[in-house]
């Protein structure tokens, strides 16, 4: 798999032919969707909650400058050290500097998509710092030397047999594909690391502007271990993770776990209100918050595209997307796969390089329907397609083909003519009427000798 969004087409082609991969993805996404439907069905006011979630996120993104200032102020009042990083490079430098000053060579880390965006592990490792991923899925991916293929289920593309072989090879244990035993092995290995760790890195799900609270949602307790045991905690977040108030948390805690994993609540929610102090008797002595802009302030000013910043990273749009279900996360060649990935990769990173992604959709709208904060995902894909064409990022031949198609479609006579031409061509070429991108996989439907319109006319004359 080539990890660049510009390779989407060839990656997708390869993935589609990988029957084994497709079965694994189908099973995982299917399980998540069934569980989600059950617990969402229990809430009659779900639609209203989605709208409320949308409105609260909009409030922050519309006033992002102000919310950054407020959150920074309250978090500092609570004794946290807040760093603002304009670019990805700034963020990695800040994080590296914090760690370097402690002179440790090992850090424990819980799941965070922003650190994926920063390629943080690779950068720290070239500087001699060992990063231990502690979320089971991330641990598996790290052992395999891969990247996550789903934002909430990073090892979704691996079967238990794949993981069994990986553990056997990398951890020197006898082969077992029993998930219970594999999990126990990870528990035992990582427990030692947690107890020795002096620096812990985590992500942030929601940062409350009014109280400075960092909220982290998880099931395995690894994020708790990373943020409670070490002397120093580094929380890495992007600026769009802010919510107006701690009073909004119950709403988002209703929307996120249900959408992500079909749970009414995850096993753990940590609400961190600062380092160890008189009011907060245990935990790290230092809490650093690294806030990444990385193009988001700019995006927040765009009238349409700002909506993608409302995302709370539940992953439901991936599970429900027929394209994601067929090709999996890696084919996108981007940090964020699936519908939300196809929306943000071009606007937040590089539109030219990611020009294929907005086209990786049937525009069925399933993503928009499932999104817990009501982001109009498929319309954004459509808008971005237009932008990509306007900027001339699509091949010239495609432009010509589209103008020809347009010419034929604009008058009934030309449309009729197109049908005749097609019929004649089919007569000459037989069933093999070649349509690139269509007929290699499918048979072109037979074109009737008489068009529907002329049949209608004939009828009305009778």
């Amino acid at each position, binding site marked *: 798999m080539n990890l660049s969004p510009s390779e989407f087409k060839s990656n997708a082609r390869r993935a589609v032919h990988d029957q084994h991969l497709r079965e*694994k993805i189908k*099973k*995982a996404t299917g*399980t*998540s969707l069934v569980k989600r439907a059950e617990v969402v069905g229990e809430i009659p006011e779900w639609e209203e909650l989605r709208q409320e979630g949308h409105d609260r996120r909009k409030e922050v993104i519309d006033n992002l400058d102000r919310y950054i200032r407020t959150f920074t102020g*309250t978090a500092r*009042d*609570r004794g946290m050290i807040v760093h603002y990083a304009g670019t990805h490079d700034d963020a990695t430098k800040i994080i590296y500097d914090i760690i370097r000053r402690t002179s440790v060579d090992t850090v424990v880390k819980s799941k965070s998509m922003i650190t994926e965006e920063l390629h943080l592990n690779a950068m720290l490792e070239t500087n001699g710092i060992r990063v231990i991923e*502690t*979320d*089971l*899925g991330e641990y*598996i991916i790290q052992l395999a030397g891969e990247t996550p293929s789903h934002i909430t*289920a*990073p*090892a979704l593309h*691996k*079967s*238990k047999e794949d*993981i069994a072989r990986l553990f056997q090879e990398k951890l020197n244990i006898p082969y077992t594909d029993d*998930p*219970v035993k*594999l*999990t*126990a092995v*990870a*528990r035992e290995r*990582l*427990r030692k690391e*947690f*107890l020795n760790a002096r620096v812990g890195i985590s992500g942030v799900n929601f940062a409350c502007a009014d*109280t400075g609270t960092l909220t982290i949602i998880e*099931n*395995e*307790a*690894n994020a*708790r*271990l990373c943020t*409670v*045991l070490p002397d120093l905690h580094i929380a890495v977040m992007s600026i769009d993770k802010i919510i107006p108030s*701690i*009073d909004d*948390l*119950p709403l988002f*805690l209703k929307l996120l776990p249900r959408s992500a*994993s079909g749970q*009414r*609540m995850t*096993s*753990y*929610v*940590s*609400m961190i*209100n*600062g380092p160890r102090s008189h*009011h*907060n*008797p*245990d*935990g790290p002595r230092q809490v650093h918050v690294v806030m990444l802009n990385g193009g988001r302030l700019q995006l927040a000013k765009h009238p349409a595209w700002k909506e993608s910043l409302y995302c709370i990273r539940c992953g439901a749009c991936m599970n429900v997307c027929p394209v994601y279900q067929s090709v999996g996360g890696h084919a996108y060649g981007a940090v964020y796969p699936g519908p939300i990935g196809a929306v943000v990769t071009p606007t937040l990173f590089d539109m030219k390089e990611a020009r294929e992604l907005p086209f990786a959709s049937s525009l069925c709208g399933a993503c928009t329907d499932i999104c817990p904060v009501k982001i109009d995902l498929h319309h954004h894909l459509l808008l971005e397609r237009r932008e990509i064409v306007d900027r001339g990022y699509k091949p010239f031949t495609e432009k010509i083909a589209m103008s020809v198609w347009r010419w034929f479609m604009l008058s009934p006579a030309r449309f009729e003519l197109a049908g005749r031409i097609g019929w004649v061509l089919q007569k000459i070429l037989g069933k093999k009427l070649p349509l690139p991108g269509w007929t290699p996989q499918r048979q072109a439907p037979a074109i009737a000798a008489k068009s529907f319109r002329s049949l209608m006319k004939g009828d009305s004359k009778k």
Partner: protein
Amino acid sequence: MNNELLDLFQSRVNDMGGWCAIAGSSKEINSIIEEKYKLGEEEVLYSGRIVEQFNDLTVTGTDLTNISPDKRRDVMAGAKLGITMCDGLIAETGTAVLVNHIAEPRELSLLPERHVVIALSDQLYPTLDKCLEKIKNSYPAGKLPSITLISGPSRTSDIEKSLVVGVHGPVEFGVVVVDRGK
């Protein structure tokens, strides 16, 4: 005591892979836990908050505050059971809300192999918003300690979506609700 709410709470805790028992008096707490786990005194750690709360309570185990601070973490990591109080129970989701407390460090609900919460029946709330509001209002602005919401034992579905209970945190989780009016 709202029985419907308690029933809902109990069934939600069960759904999450935990257990919930009702004790009619503080005396009953000990027999519930002993019967469940049959552990020795040195295997069970309880928080100093429990002693503050119930002066008539005898729990088999060791009061964490009696262990010297530099040894606490190792003792907690080796314990078979950690017992804590809580600051609220949420019926809708089967959640225990724990506010960071001097006599009850967060590690006590995290490092021991199992975790049991002792709660009073009047700590039960229908939903999280009500409970959070109450907690928020009982601290001066800017002085709210860290809070942990706990719903069941630690779990994962990272391997082929099959549920495995007991990952990095407690392998078992239980709640004893003390209902003095029972």
